[in-house]
């Protein structure tokens, strides 16, 4: 049967289609200009001298020889910038260190020169004398008696009036940040338990490994306005922070974000190299470009938060969870960045992944002389989920209950609220569990594998399941969690979409363009996206918390609907119709009921523009999600929607060598709705493989505060031949607040891989390993009972 005109007119919906990324053709032909490829006329090249000591007092710094190197314009130390102010979320970190270095990455001096070579030569000539201090590189020992205090004195800097002010108070116990959350009564929960399990888990150091190294270009104009070319994921927050740092008005700072070589959360904080480049630009009155080497990227970038975690949980005879109690020690490293705030996310998983009637959660983030931890895709959730899902298997096994049935019994339904205050308006948790189990034949394989534990074959198969809960509709951590959009249509129905939402490779500009085109009935190639210049784009809180599709998407839709409304309201009287009779489809104003074409949109826009009314179609919209801030007890509905996923891992374990091969991941994700199928598949596949690296191979080796493997030879990223077969299902729960029903998905796929792999290794071998990653050496030793399981320090209380 031939489609009716209406069917034909409305068949061009872009939702759920495979829409290629708008920026991909340029990227694949080498045309895209990343920060690394930008050279500003007159620019100098900057390099940073870092500490060779892990913890030491700086006795002296001699830069005289360095200053004499031809081509060197400036050599600076803390003494040259007495007005510098601290960075980081607790303001405990001076960009250039004056008296004490607290980690191997610490910045002591910096050079700006005509060439990188001259800057490097100057660095080699700087002489620093140190007086070693006792080092603290074990987070468990940081809480013990007699531990050296790393920030034991007030940090004072000159204030605006020149007088010294305390910007970071002395820390008398090495605890940088502490969190405590509870609901119900865990003692009662324990009394009601038929089974109780307790374990200690160690979640290791990994780092982002963005393929493009960190960098910045800083330039002041003649009036003292600062222009930064930056890879930041949060340009509007940084604009304000840099202003504070420099004591200038935020309006005098403009941040341009060239295309970025990977983000993954690494660019949420300000790091010392950025203010240092600004200092050099200010002093030399020249544009200054600073790029890391790969080794520097490993040494001086943030890590994922390493966590020692003790989990105690229980369930009753019927298999209902009774309580969870968690205590963690977060290795903060030498300074405080976002890693210390991962408890915000971890406690959500502890309190609300499955129904937990009684819960207690405590974290202390402690200072050590190790690298400091930042934010990284998943934000604490990989660590929390690793422990929780190990216990879901252990509790089910202890009861003799099927592990899937046990999970389904405790999983939430749509409409439920958790004791922490999260309201699951859409919730596909049970569908995720059921779909992933069915598509992987989880139950039959899990039972079958047990029969091979003692069959003499050294090659074992295992299957393991894990689920996750994560914010999917932003996270109200700042005063606003919103995003602004400006839309303009030109005389030829070409759209300029100006959005605060940053593109970091994840495909936001394509999905936002798609949502706008869906409203305006225009083809995807009619959109130009402007998204990388704070002087042009409206405010957005930044790319984090899997929020861009949801928040930026709702904002884009809001602006597009206003544009559509204006077109329809203006067109309706001429067509002798009401605006509600009309729609925009296939580049035309059409009759909604029949799809009959009334006028081409471009022609209509010209007639509007060049008429007596002389109007253009330009709209603005600011979307603020209907979420709330957490209260002082960490309770509240912090996200406008929540994302769910279940992933099933199948592994092969060679018990003779300890080698674990990841064969297959069966993933089911509650994504609300698929907007760009190509983009969402890419996010999920990429996240799965990042999770695979976390589980099996990636391990930033930090010994006595030194990083032992700052290169891709010894830090093992997953390579193309190692990826598993991936079977991804989308559970479309059509979230009521989501853009076209969609929820955020960026972080979700990386979160439960390690947990699922741990359960799979247990299913293959009967051995549970409590520390990551599952390298051959660790697995080999564990299978022979030679692994020291992680221990909770007795004196940490």
């Amino acid at each position: 049967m031939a489609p009716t005109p209406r069917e034909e007119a409305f068949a061009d919906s872009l939702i759920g289609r495979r829409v290629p990324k708008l920026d991909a053709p340029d990227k694949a032909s080498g045309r895209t200009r990343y920060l690394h490829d930008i050279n500003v006329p007159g620019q100098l090249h900057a390099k940073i001298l870092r500490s060779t000591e892990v913890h030491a007092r700086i006795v002296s710094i001699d830069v005289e020889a360095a200053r004499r190197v031809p081509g060197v314009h400036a050599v600076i130390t803390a003494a040259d910038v007495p007005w510098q102010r601290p960075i980081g979320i607790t303001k405990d970190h001076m960009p250039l260190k004056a008296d004490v270095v607290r980690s191997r990455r610490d910045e002591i001096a910096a050079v700006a020169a005509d060439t990188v070579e001259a800057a490097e030569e100057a660095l080699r000539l700087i002489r620093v004398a140190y007086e070693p201090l006792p080092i603290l590189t074990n987070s468990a020992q940081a809480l013990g008696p007699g531990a050296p205090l790393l920030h034991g004195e007030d940090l004072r800097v000159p204030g605006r009036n020149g007088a010294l002010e305390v910007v970071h108070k002395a820390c008398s116990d090495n605890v940088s940040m502490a969190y405590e959350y509870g609901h119900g009564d865990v003692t009662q929960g324990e009394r009601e338990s038929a089974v109780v399990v307790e374990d200690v888990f160690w979640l290791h150091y990994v780092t982002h490994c963005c393929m493009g190294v960190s960098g910045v270009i800083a330039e002041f104009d003649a009036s003292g306005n600062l222009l930064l070319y930056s890879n930041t994921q949060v340009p509007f927050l940084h604009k304000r922070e840099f202003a504070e740092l420099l004591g200038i008005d935020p309006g005098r700072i403009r941040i341009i974000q060239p295309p970025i070589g990977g983000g993954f959360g690494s660019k949420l904080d300000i790091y010392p190299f950025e203010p240092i480049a600004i200092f050099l630009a200010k002093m030399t009155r020249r544009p200054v470009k600073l790029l890391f080497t790969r080794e520097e990227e490993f040494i001086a970038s943030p890590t994922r938060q390493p966590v020692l975690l003790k989990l105690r949980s229980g369930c009753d005879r019927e298999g209902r969870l009774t309580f969870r109690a968690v205590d963690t020690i977060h290795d903060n490293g030498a300074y405080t960045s976002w890693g210390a705030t991962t408890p915000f996310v971890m406690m959500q998983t502890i309190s609300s992944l499955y129904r937990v009637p009684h819960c207690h959660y405590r974290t202390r983030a402690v200072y050590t002389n190790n690298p400091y931890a930042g934010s990284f895709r998943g934000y604490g959730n990989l660590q929390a989920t690793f422990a929780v899902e190990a216990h879901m298997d252990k509790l089910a096994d202890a009861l003799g209950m099927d592990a899937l049935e046990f999970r389904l019994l405790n999983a939430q339904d749509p409409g439920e609220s958790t004791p922490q205050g999260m309201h699951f308006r859409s919730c596909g948790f049970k569908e995720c569990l059921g779909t992933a189990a069915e598509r992987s034949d989880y139950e039959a394989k899990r039972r079958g594998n047990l029969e091979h534990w003692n069959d003499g074959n050294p090659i074992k198969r295992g299957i393991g399941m894990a689920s996750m809960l994560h914010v999917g509709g932003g996270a109200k951590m700042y005063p606003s969690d919103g995003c602004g959009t400006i839309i303009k249509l030109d005389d030829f129905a070409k759209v300029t979409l100006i959005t605060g939402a940053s593109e970091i490779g994840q495909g936001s500009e394509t999905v936002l363009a798609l949502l706008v085109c869906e409203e305006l009935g225009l083809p995807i190639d009619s959109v130009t996206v402007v998204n990388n210049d704070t002087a042009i784009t409206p405010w957005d809180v930044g790319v984090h918390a899997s929020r861009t599709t949801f928040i930026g998407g709702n904002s884009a839709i809001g602006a597009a609907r206003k544009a559509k409304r204006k077109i329809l309201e203006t067109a309706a009287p001429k067509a002798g119709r009401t605006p509600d009779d009309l729609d925009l489809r296939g580049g035309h104003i059409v009759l909604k009921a029949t799809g009959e074409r009334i006028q081409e949109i471009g022609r209509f826009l010209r007639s509007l523009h060049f008429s007596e009314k002389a109007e253009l179609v330009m709209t603005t919209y600011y979307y603020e999600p209907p979420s709330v801030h957490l209260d002082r007890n960490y309770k509240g509905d912090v996200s406008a929607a929540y994302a769910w996923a279940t992933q099933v891992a199948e592994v092969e374990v060679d018990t003779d060598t300890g080698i674990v091969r990841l064969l297959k991941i069966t993933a089911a994700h509650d994504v609300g709705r698929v907007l760009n199928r190509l983009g969402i598949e890419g996010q999920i596949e990429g996240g799965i493989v990042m999770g695979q690296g976390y589980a099996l191979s990636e391990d930033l080796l930090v010994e006595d505060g030194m990083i032992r493997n700052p290169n891709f030879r010894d830090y093992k990223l997953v390579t193309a031949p190692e990826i598993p077969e991936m079977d991804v299902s989308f559970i479309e729960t059509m979230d009521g607040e989501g853009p076209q029903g969609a929820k955020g998905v960026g972080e979700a796929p990386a979160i439960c891989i390690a947990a699922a792999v741990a359960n799979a290794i247990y299913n293959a071998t009967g051995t549970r390993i409590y520390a990551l990653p599952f390298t051959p050496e660790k697995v080999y030793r564990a299978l022979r009972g030679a692994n020291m399981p992680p221990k909770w320090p007795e004196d940490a209380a």
Partner: protein
Amino acid sequence: MSALIEIEFRLNGISRRVTVPLQMSALEMLRDMMGQHGTKYGCGEGECGACTISVDHRTVNSCLKFAVDCNGRDIQTIEGLAATPFGENLNRAMVEHGAVQCGFCTPGIMMQAQQVLTDNPDASPAQIQRGLEGNLCRCTGYRKILDAIEAVAHPSPAGD
């Protein structure tokens, strides 16, 4: 200042003459002296493949090759590949299969994909996977990259 030496080679089909320091890498020469920014610095030690170029029709990590060793050679970079029919075809496949996210590894992967399919136009999925072993990608999980290259090797009859 180290010694300078004049070299001559073909870059994407055009004869070029340039004076380079002895210790300069081919990567630095291409990026800093010849404006070929499509070739990326990822690690500087031959581990990531972002700087892959073709020298006399063999891919190498340009970060590990001295610029002076380009003398008399036939060099192709992503800019050259992108301008060939094969490069356009590969570009289209990478775009349509969603093989590009941040895109920083993509030029190197394009160069290596050309090598794999030139060596073996009928390469199997496993051979393509093995051929891409030296190119790291942090975004995509490789699946869509492999799909794109497989589609170039074995175009489906429907031409989708």
